[in-house]
């Protein structure tokens, strides 16, 4: 009795008792499906986080003011001189009403220094970012975030048109892409000089972006910046600080730890559900061996060896479990597709997930099928034939 025939026999067995087979496979289906979907969600979320972090630019540290007078231009100038700092860029934030045609929104005004585009590397969908040459820093030009553009009713032809910020006309030179963090929020970017002269008249800064010379330099630069600010602002306790320092690498580490924990959790769920599914299969196989005792006796009588009986029942358990795994995989992939549409990340079928899901399903079939199959093969032909 070759394996192919045994396999076909197993399939016809499973097909003959669809409801029972389906219920038996349910544990494996749910287990594999849940793990495949959760893994995809984890990977998608990770990818989304990576993308938005990458878009912030490499080796960055951001110092944000936590009070209206927390950071000054002199701080930025001093930080630019700290060892390991490649460049700094400053932002002043305020809010204003932006109007275009009949549309009008309340927008965040981000006044950025010329080095901003170099440092933060925003993705521009249309046009270009703000001019960087010193002579144009007082120009009335504006770059609109994707969401802002959407709300204001921009079309491709809007480039070069004017929008009004609290009544002052600005020429639209660019629209940002919404694929990364820049797309979110109804923000408009203008030069810092323009922002200061029109919206944010105080000499204080909202935030300072710092780019370190290398990835290794991020931590020491962060330390030095913190020491400098503590000293220059006279901060003794952390609670008194007028600023907060945000390090992208540290965030990435935190996220990695979280995703690592999540992966362990998913593996745990997978392990438990596969064991539960396997016990279900073992249970039904033991019932099956009992129900088919006479058949086993007949097969032994017409010349089946113990090993051939063992193979038949083991095959049946493995086919049940692999079939369950396959159905779980398909359901899991469909769910991941749904999540990817909802979450806005790319859907892809990970070959590792497929391989691991199928491999573990087969393993469960073997592990939990061996005992029933051995029970079947060890039946004495005489007893099996006499069994009522």
């Amino acid at each position, binding site marked *: 009795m070759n394996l192919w025939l045994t396999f076909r026999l197993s399939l016809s067995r499973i097909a003959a008792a669809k409801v029972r087979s389906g219920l038996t496979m349910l544990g494996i289906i749910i287990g594999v499906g849940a793990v495949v979907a959760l893994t995809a969600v984890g990977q998608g979320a990770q990818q989304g986080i990576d993308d938005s972090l990458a878009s912030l630019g490499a080796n960055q540290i951001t110092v944000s003011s936590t009070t209206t007078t927390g950071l000054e231009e002199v701080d930025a100038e001093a930080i630019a001189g700290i060892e390991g700092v490649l460049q700094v860029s400053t932002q002043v934030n305020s809010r204003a009403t932006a109007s275009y045609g009949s549309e009008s929104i309340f927008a965040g005004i981000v006044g950025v220094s010329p080095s901003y585009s170099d440092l933060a590397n925003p993705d521009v969908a249309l046009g270009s970012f703000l001019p960087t040459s010193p002579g144009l820093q007082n120009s009335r030009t504006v770059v609109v975030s994707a969401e802002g553009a959407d709300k204001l009713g921009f079309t491709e032809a809007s480039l070069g048109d004017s929008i009004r910020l609290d009544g002052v006309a600005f020429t639209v030179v660019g629209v940002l892409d919404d694929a990364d963090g820049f797309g979110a929020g109804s923000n408009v970017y203008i030069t810092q000089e323009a922002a200061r002269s029109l919206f944010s008249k105080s000499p204080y800064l909202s935030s300072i972006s710092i780019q370190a010379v290398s990835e290794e330099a991020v931590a020491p630069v962060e330390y030095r910046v913190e020491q400098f600010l503590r000293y220059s602002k006279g901060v003794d306790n952390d609670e008194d600080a007028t600023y907060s320092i945000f390090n992208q690498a540290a965030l990435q580490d935190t996220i990695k730890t979280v995703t690592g924990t999540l992966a362990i959790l998913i593996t745990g769920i997978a392990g438990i559900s596969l064991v539960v599914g396997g016990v279900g299969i073992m249970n039904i196989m033991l019932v099956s061996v009992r129900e088919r005792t*006479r058949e086993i006796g007949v097969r032994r009588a017409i010349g089946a060896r113990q090993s051939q009986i063992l193979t038949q029942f083991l095959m049946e358990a493995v086919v049940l479990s692999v079939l369950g795994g396959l159905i779980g995989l398909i359901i899991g992939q469909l769910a991941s597709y749904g999540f990817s549409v909802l979450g806005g990340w790319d859907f892809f079928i990970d070959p590792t997930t497929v391989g691991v899901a199928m491999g573990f399903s087969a393993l469960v079939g073997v592990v939990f099928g061996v005992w029933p199959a051995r029970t079947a093969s060890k039946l004495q032909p005489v007893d099996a034939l006499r069994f009522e």
Partner: protein
Amino acid sequence: MTDRVVELSHVRREYQTGDVPTVALADVSLEVRRGEFVAIVGPSGSGKSTLMNLIGCLDRPSAGTVKIAGNDISTLDDNQLTAVRSKAIGFVFQQFQLLPLTSAVDNVAAPLLYQGLRPREAQKRAAAMLTRLGLGDRLDFDRGRLSGGQQQRVAISRALVTNPDLVLADEPTGALDTSSGAAVMELFKEMNAEGRTIVLITHDLDVAAAAKRRIYIRDGLIERDEVGSMAGAQ
């Protein structure tokens, strides 16, 4: 090759039920030669089923020797016993015992597949055997679509397909109506006329009458061994 298909010499078989050993066969010696048609006749509890199990290589004796087609089965392990059974014995059961979810042709092919024959060849031989027994138009029917008589003919095809030394039939007409039963007995007679060795186990004297030799068994012992036509039967 020996002319003696079955050789039993002072065979004893007892079962342990609780603390008391039950003697199923006390002391049985018999021989069946190639080409014989023997009925083993006895009431239930006489030990005839135990005798069938021993002749069919399904069981080993507690004492004495059992030789089937020249193989002393008391010394064989399970795999060797299976090999002898596979080669030397063709079983026909009372309840037909066709394999479930399996077509007639696949049922008949099964013993050949267990012997390791290739599926295509096994199917060819199985189909030929079924055709010879008049079931050529029902090769793909499973047991649910066959009458009792047809099922038993499939079972007989399955017993014959390996060309065994001995066909061992246990109450082969027990689950059939009179006319189907008679047809099956005719088939056994024809098979014997072709030179097949047949051992039939039955409690039914009318069925036993078809055999050329009858061994009466009672209380684990041979009561009578009778050759030739039965008294009172045609």
